[in-house]
């Protein structure tokens, strides 16, 4: 087989993996948009906040330590404990639920029935607020993120040797697939399966779908909108935590983590704002597309095309399908 084709296959596979990571972020957007019609710009910052909280709880950091030290002149930093990853995850989910409740109680309950642009704006305000709070709470230095189930069994990173050897046997060139990406894919699959099971087979899940279909009708059969919205925001918070951990494992937990939202937007446009399978397939298309474009065309035009390629691709698709590939058909009546 010619080399270029083998390389392209490797790029393609890596694109798929990157796509899964994009889809993870996009999933949070879709959940909230479906249930409440809110385009939640704060999803990226939520991922940052969740990851910071996770590391903070795990490492036993004192929240708001810097602020307390400045005001009271104390010198506190750590409680002096290290928690098991799973306990830290559970506690972080608790924090995200409180956050969901607070967002609902203090912000979105007062904005029911407003135009979408106003709701969108509110989430931008929320993003700012959350970013400031996250920094005040946990400090803005880079934190190393470790997720270990038991001593020594941690989130794997680096080249997967088995795939490298097998593909070397086939093509004479070992493919590079990152273990972290493989784990992310597995986690994403589990997450999506759980979400599907939850929304198909549980009472609250069905209520959630009912709300997504028609607020008024759901309300009239006795579904509590308030509860469902808190639930959806909590689920989105959990998805944000998973995305935050996966991305944070690569780069350490730091401010730039909130910028992954920008990677998710073209995924949403492609897949449609209202479709969970759309988010996943959109993610895969964007991942593969941008990697292959960078591989094939990038060197000719100077590289670093990945920032805009996904957007331009999505723009072109939208011109032909204005609701995205999987979005609900937009019906307009006068």
């Amino acid at each position: 087989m010619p080399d270029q084709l083998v390389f392209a296959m490797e790029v393609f596979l890596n694109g798929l993996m990157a796509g899964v990571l994009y889809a993870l972020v996009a999933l949070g957007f879709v959940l909230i948009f479906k249930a409440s019609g809110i385009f939640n710009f704060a999803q990226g910052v939520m991922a940052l906040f969740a990851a910071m909280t996770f590391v903070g709880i795990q490492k036993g950091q004192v929240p708001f330590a810097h602020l307390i030290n400045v005001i009271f002149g104390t010198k506190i930093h750590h409680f002096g404990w290290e928690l098991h990853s799973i306990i830290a995850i559970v506690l972080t989910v608790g924090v995200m639920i409180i956050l969901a409740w607070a967002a609902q109680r203090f912000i979105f309950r007062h904005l029911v029935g407003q135009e979408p642009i106003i709701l969108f704006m509110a989430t931008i305000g929320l993003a700012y607020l959350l970013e400031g709070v996250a920094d005040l709470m946990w400090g803005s230095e880079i934190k190393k993120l470790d997720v270990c189930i038991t001593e020594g069994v941690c989130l794997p990173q680096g080249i997967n040797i088995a795939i490298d050897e097998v593909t070397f046997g086939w093509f004479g060139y070992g493919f590079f697939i990152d273990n972290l990406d493989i784990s992310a894919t597995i986690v994403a699959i589990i997450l999506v399966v759980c979400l599907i099971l939850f929304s198909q087979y549980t009472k609250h899940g069905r209520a959630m779908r009912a709300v997504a279909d028609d607020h008024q009708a759901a309300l009239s059969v006795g579904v509590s909108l308030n509860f469902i919205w808190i639930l959806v925001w909590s689920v989105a918070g959990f998805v944000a935590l998973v995305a935050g951990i996966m991305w944070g494992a690569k780069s350490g937990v730091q401010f730039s983590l909130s910028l992954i939202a920008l990677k998710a937007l073209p995924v949403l446009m492609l897949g449609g704002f209202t479709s969970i399978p759309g988010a996943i397939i959109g993610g895969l298309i964007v991942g593969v597309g941008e990697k292959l474009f960078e591989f094939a065309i990038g060197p000719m035009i100077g590289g670093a095309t990945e920032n805009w390629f996904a957007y331009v691709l999505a723009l072109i698709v939208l011109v032909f399908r204005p609701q995205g590939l999987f979005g609900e058909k937009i019906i307009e009546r006068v």
Partner: protein
Amino acid sequence: MFYREAGDFKTSYAADTQTFPIKFDRYTYYLALAVAFLVLPFLVSDYLVNAIFVPFLIYAIAAIGLNILTGYCGQVSLGTGGFMAVGAYACYKLMTSFPDVSIVIHIILAGGVTAAVGAAFGLPSLRIKGFYLAVATLAAQFFLVWLFNKVAWFYNYSASGQINAPERTVFSVPVTGANVEPWAQYLICLVFTFLCAVLARNLTRGTLGRTWMAIRDMDIAAEIIGVNPLKAKLTAFAVSSFFIGIAGALFFAVYLGAVEVGEAFGIQKSFIVLFMIIIGGLGSIWGSFAGAALLVVLPVLLKLIGVDLLGWPPDIVQHFQLVIVGALILVFLVLEPHGLAQLWRVAKEKLRLWPFPH
């Protein structure tokens, strides 16, 4: 008491449709103009001009531009930063290619170039609507920034890709470059802002503005009553980009003097201008000014209070600033979703009857 209409008779249609129909309003406006043009230039210092007035005026132009597109024509755009970059780079290329032509002409031409680019990126708006369009305009943002970073012709092949504004004069007073006086910087921005605001006000209340608003309120209905959506949307994109281009040119040439595209015209710029018009009020020229003023002055004010008066470490103040700006946006939206302009209108209604509301 202040806003008395009694005895304020209008005898012509033109008089009735003027921008400030109430006498008190009109005189306040004239007074404000007089202060801005005749008094402030003698008072301003380097700090006031560079920290408050010039950014305020430039952001006001950009906000007016975006407000035409988003507030009047209903097309949400997140490409403002990219279009400002077009204005800045067009201005730079013109400044360095034709050094003998006046900078004023260059800035206006830069607006024209941006209008053309904006109209081109506006084409998809004929098919794409709502949030899909908002995200689609991000394509313009990222692509344009990448382009200016990549193609060396745009920055005259300089080693690092930064562009520097050389010295240019208006009536032999330098307005760009190192030796510019603060009042000159202030005045050139003020003149542009004033002209843009007058132009925008008159465009938006004329035929063009009405077709935009018809499209905003319901595009299908507008189409049925004979508004051409192609023409309306593209003119909105072009006019909006024209203003944004002028803002970008001033931002580069007069305010910063040296610009690196990814840093100065990144996605952050697009968001901040959008915040301005939403906080100020969609579909209101006054609101564009109010929003720009709030978002320019607030951080400076918070910094002065936090760092200089309370003596807190700057990083904590900075974090609090994020929290406060975020909270403020939320509080505003919860209390008054239509922005400062609506608040102002409500206050005016009250003042008309004050002190005898019944």
